[in-house]
């Protein structure tokens, strides 16, 4: 289909990419991109990194205002989609109704707010407005407590330590970034942050926020002038659910990223798609998944069914002067092999499933190439070449 109206719900990085890719693929019909935040669509990853340091919001815009006009993309910002009428192929946006030929759900996630007394005192860090609030509050504050030892919490901890704040991080799990990272890498980052002066309370969740302090499960209290809640996110699936689409930890899609209604697609943080390795549905929170899936959907809409979606996932996190890069996807029971100080290979059974590196773009990129091969390299083959991915990737060139 290269005419017809495509409506995209969600103007984050994935929604914007879907609109741009539709035009690049030659879609000639109308495109409407609807976001619930005010202002131009922007990049989220820098909010907990460069933006927090520099405060330069003007560098975050994904595209300039006139760009959307030039590409004939109707950009509706500060608007919420209230409902989808699948039978009539309509979406309701306040007083307005739009008729669609194809609908793309790119609704993303929202912060998970645990039911802790006083949690309303905590700052969040997901939107630009929240990042501005946090940045202002950090100014002139001394003691920071972070709830959650994941990417966002640790990125903020590193920035706050650089700004000479006193930083405590409380994490209910026994180790840092446990959902995505090997135990060995968790330990490396714990030591790094401790050397920078951050103090950790692991296996010790927060049970209450009071004026001027937080209370831990252990009963200990930590004085804090500012509390950041960074305990993960939940996918925004209410719209899909209300429309009767299949939802299970995200809007469930098939290998072509179609929901249970073939005219409706879902992408990025809000969608659960079949992992080509395991066949299990997974939901990824990353720019890579959002934009690669957006491109795949655009191709399918314009040119018809494509190959099943099978891009190698990758992730990154900047913490002080360490850039953590992860290629691939490891489940929690994947085995780990440490190679040198700053690289961990992860295996699912006998097959390589992920590679974690610190400040090593070369190995990271080699891993991305290798993991794109199916099947992925076997442990024995990698062990035979001393886990030198360069020697493995050479085979591609022959």
């Amino acid at each position, binding site marked *: 289909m290269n005419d017809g109206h495509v409506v995209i719900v969600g103007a984050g990085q994935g929604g914007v990419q879907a609109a741009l890719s539709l035009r*690049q693929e030659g879609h000639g019909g109308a495109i409407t991109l609807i976001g619930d935040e005010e202002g131009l669509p922007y*990049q989220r*990853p*820098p909010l907990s*990194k460069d933006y927090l340091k520099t405060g330069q919001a*003007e*560098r975050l*815009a*994904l*595209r*300039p205002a*006139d*760009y959307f006009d*030039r590409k004939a993309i109707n950009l509706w910002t500060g608007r919420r989609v209230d409902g989808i009428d699948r039978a009539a192929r309509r979406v309701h946006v306040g007083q307005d109704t739009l008729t669609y030929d194809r609908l793309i759900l790119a609704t993303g996630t929202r912060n998970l707010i645990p039911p802790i007394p006083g949690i309303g005192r905590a700052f969040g860090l997901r939107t630009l407005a929240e990042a501005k609030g946090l940045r202002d509050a950090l100014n002139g504050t001394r003691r920071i407590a972070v709830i959650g030892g994941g990417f966002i919490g640790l990125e903020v901890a590193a920035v706050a330590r650089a700004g000479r704040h006193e930083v405590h991080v409380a994490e209910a799990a026994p180790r840092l970034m446990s959902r995505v990272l090997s135990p060995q890498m968790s330990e490396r980052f714990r030591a790094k942050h401790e050397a920078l002066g951050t103090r950790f309370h692991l296996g010790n969740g927060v049970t209450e926020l009071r004026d001027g302090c937080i209370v831990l499960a252990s009963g200990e209290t930590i004085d804090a002038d500012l509390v950041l809640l960074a305990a993960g996110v939940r996918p925004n699936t209410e719209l899909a659910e209300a429309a009767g689409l299949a939802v299970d930890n995200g809007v469930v899609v098939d290998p072509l990223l179609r929901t249970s209604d073939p005219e409706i697609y879902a992408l990025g943080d809000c969608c659960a798609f079949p992992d080509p390795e395991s066949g299990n549905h997974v939901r990824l929170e990353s*720019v*890579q998944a959002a*934009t690669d899936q957006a*491109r795949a959907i655009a191709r399918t809409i314009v040119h018809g069914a494509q190959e099943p979606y099978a891009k190698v996932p*990758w992730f*990154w996190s*900047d913490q002080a002067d360490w*850039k953590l*890069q992860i290629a691939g996807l490891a489940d929690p029971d994947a085995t780990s092999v440490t190679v040198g100080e700053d690289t961990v290979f992860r295996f699912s059974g006998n097959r390589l499933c992920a590679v974690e590196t610190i400040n090593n*773009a*070369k190995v990271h*990129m080699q891993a*991305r*190439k290798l993991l794109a091969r199916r099947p992925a390299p076997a442990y024995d083959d990698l062990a035979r070449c001393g886990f030198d991915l360069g020697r493995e990737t050479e085979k591609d060139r022959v």
Partner: protein
Amino acid sequence: MIKVTFIEYDGTRTTVEGRNGDSVMSLAAAQGIDGIVAECGGGMMCATCHCYVDDKWFARTGPRSDDEADMLDCAVAEVRQTSRLSCQITLSDALDGLVVHLPETQV
């Protein structure tokens, strides 16, 4: 202000003005130049802001760093001697008039 000319694969020339300290990538993004994707927003995490520095300017921008070269290994378009990641080129007065060429595709 520092002038930079982007020449896209189809020959489209766009000249825009940036400030000292901007990267060539951020300038391209701010101006909506199509041939620069810049997926990671300048984190040197992808190779989707690949450009070819015009031969006349290559001596002034200088060559790529080792880390940049590692990322460029995964660029989709052909890597040439003048290939750079545009997020790693910082504008300065010495680069006023810079010309960069963009590859056919970034992803």
